[in-house]
C-alpha cells in the first residue's frame, strides 16, 4: 500500500476565511435593503412633515396635493385602499378557505393533484394581466348589472385583487389543515362525526392561527397591490364606500404620480414618499402580526 501524499491545507484555509467574510457581507445586503427602504422613504417623508403637519396628513379628508390650493389629507387614499381590501377579502377569504378545505379534506387524491396546480397557476399570473382582465372583462359585467357604475371602479379592481389572492389564502390554509394530525380526525369519526363536523370542530379550530395568518397576509397583499388598482380602480381620491365609484388607493397614487414624473424636490415629490411610508408601515405591521400569530401557534404544538 503506497502512502498517499496530501496537500497542505494552509492555502485553502486562508481562502476559507475570505469566503466566510464574503458570505457574511452578502448577509448584510438584506439589512442594507431594509435600511435603504427606511432611508429612501423616511428622508423625504421627514422633509414632507416639515411643511405639513402629521395631524393634517392623517386626519384631513381631502387629498389634492397638486391642485391649488393643495390639501394633504391622506384619508381618501386610505379609504380607497380599505375599500379594495374589503372587496378583495370578501372574495379571497371565503373562496380561498373553501378551496383549502376542499383540497385538504374532501378532494380525492387524483382531483387534488389536478386542481392544486391550477390554483398555483392563478398565483403566478402577473398582476398586470389581472388589471387587464378587470378592465376588459369584469367591469363590463358589473356594468350590465349596475349600469351607473363608473368605467373605473373599486369593485372591479377589488374583485381582481381578490382573485389574485385566493391562492395565497388557500395554499397556506391548506398546508395548515394538512398538518392537523389524522389521529384527531379519526378520533372524531370514531365517535360518529360527519366530515363536515370533523372539519368544523377539529380541523379548522386546530389550524386556526395559521388560517388567520393567511388572511392577514392576503390583506397585506391587497394593501400593497398596485397594477390592478392603477388600471381598474381609477384615480379619484374620494371618501366613498361606494364600490361602484372611481377611487384611488395609496399604491394607485404612487403609480399615477410616478408616471407623470414629478419634479424632484417639490412637495408633490415628497407626497409620494409620505404615502409610501404609510403604506410601508401598514403592510409591515400586518406582516408582523401574521408572523406573530403563526409563531404562537407553533409553540402550542
Amino acid at each position: 500500500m503506497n502512502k498517499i501524499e496530501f496537500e497542505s491545507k494552509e492555502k485553502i484555509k486562508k481562502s476559507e476565511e475570505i469566503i466566510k467574510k464574503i458570505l457574511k457581507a452578502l448577509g448584510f445586503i438584506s439589512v442594507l435593503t431594509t435600511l435603504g427602504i427606511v432611508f429612501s422613504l423616511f428622508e423625504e417623508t421627514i422633509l414632507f412633515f416639515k411643511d405639513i403637519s402629521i395631524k393634517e396628513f392623517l386626519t384631513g379628508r381631502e387629498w389634492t396635493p397638486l391642485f391649488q390650493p393643495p390639501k394633504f389629507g391622506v384619508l381618501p387614499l386610505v379609504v380607497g385602499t380599505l375599500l379594495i381590501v374589503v372587496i378583495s377579502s370578501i372574495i379571497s377569504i371565503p373562496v380561498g378557505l373553501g378551496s383549502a378545505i376542499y383540497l385538504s379534506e374532501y378532494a380525492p387524491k387524483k382531483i387534488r393533484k389536478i386542481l392544486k396546480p391550477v390554483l398555483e397557476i392563478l398565483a403566478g399570473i402577473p398582476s398586470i394581466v389581472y388589471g387587464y382582465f378587470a378592465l376588459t372583462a369584469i367591469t363590463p359585467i358589473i356594468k350590465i348589472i349596475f349600469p351607473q357604475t363608473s368605467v373605473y371602479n373599486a369593485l372591479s379592481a377589488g374583485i381582481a385583487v381578490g382573485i389574485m389572492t385566493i391562492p395565497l389564502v388557500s395554499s397556506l390554509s391548506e398546508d395548515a389543515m394538512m398538518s392537523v394530525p389524522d389521529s384527531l380526525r379519526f378520533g372524531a369519526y370514531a365517535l360518529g362525526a360527519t366530515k363536515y363536523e370533523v372539519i368544523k370542530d377539529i380541523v379548522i379550530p386546530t389550524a386556526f392561527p395559521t388560517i388567520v395568518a393567511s388572511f392577514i397576509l392576503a390583506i397585506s397583499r391587497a394593501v400593497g397591490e398596485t397594477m390592478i388598482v392603477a388600471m381598474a380602480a381609477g384615480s379619484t381620491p374620494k371618501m366613498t364606500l361606494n364600490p361602484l365609484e372611481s377611487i384611488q388607493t395609496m399604491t394607485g397614487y404612487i403609480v399615477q404620480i410616478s408616471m407623470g414624473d414629478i419634479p424632484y424636490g417639490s412637495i408633490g415629490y415628497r407626497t409620494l414618499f409620505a404615502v409610501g411610508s404609510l403604506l410601508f408601515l401598514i403592510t409591515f405591521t400586518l406582516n408582523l402580526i401574521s408572523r406573530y400569530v403563526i409563531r404562537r401557534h407553533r409553540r402550542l404544538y
Partner: protein
Amino acid sequence: MENIIKIENLNFYYGNFLALKNINMDIYKNKITAFIGPSGCGKSTLLRTLNRMNDFIENIKVEGNIYFKGQNIYSKEVDPVELRRRIGMVFQKPNPFPKTIYENIVYGLRKNGVNKKEILDEVVERTLKAVALYDEVKDKIYKSALELSGGQQQRLCIARAIAMQPEVVLMDEPTSALDPISTLKIEELLLELKKDYTIIIVTHSMQQAARISDWTAFFLNGELIEYDTTENIFENPRDKRTEDYITGRFG
C-alpha cells in the same frame, strides 16, 4: 354464547395488495377479544374494517360480509356515521381534541343532538368515574385536555368513546404508548368495562392478551391462523406458528 359481530369470508385489499385473506370469525358479546400477531399481519386493518374507518382510505376493496347484530354493515342501508356511533374506537396514540376535557367527552353526544346540560354533566361524571379519572381531573374538566398526561389522555379517550354508549369498543394497541402504571390502570378498566361492552383489543404484548382477554385471535400475513379462548391459545395452541409466536420464537 351470543355473537355480536360475525365475519364471513372477508377479503380486504389496499389497491392490489390483499391485506386480509378469507377471514371468518365470531366476536362474542361482553367478552374481551384480543388480536395478536406480528407487525403488518393485518390486525389494525381488520379492526378498522369493523367500524368502517377504512372508508377514509382511498383505493380499498372489501369482499365478504360483516354482520353487526345480524345486519351486514357494508350493505347500502347502513350509515357508517351511525355505525361508528354504535361501535366506538380507541387508538394507539391518545388523541384528545384540543378542547376542554368536558367538551371532549360530550363531543359525540352533542353531534347527535344531545345538548341538555343535565344529561351531559351526568355523562361526563359517569364516564370519568368509569375510567377512574374522575378524582384526578374533577377540578379541571373545563381545562384543555392537552394538559393531561399521556395515560390520562388515553383514559379520557376511552371515556369519550364510552360516552356514546357504544355496543362494541375497538381498541388498537391502546396502551403501547403508555408507561407500565398507566397500562395497568387501563387493563383494570377494561375488565371493568366488559360488563357493559364488548371489547376488541389489538395488542403486541402477549402478557396483556393473556391477562385480560377471553378470546384471542392470532394473525399472520393477513390470515387468521388460530382463534380460540385465550386459555387454549396460550396453553394449548393447535398451530405450530401460534406456538412459535407466543413463545417468542419470532416477531
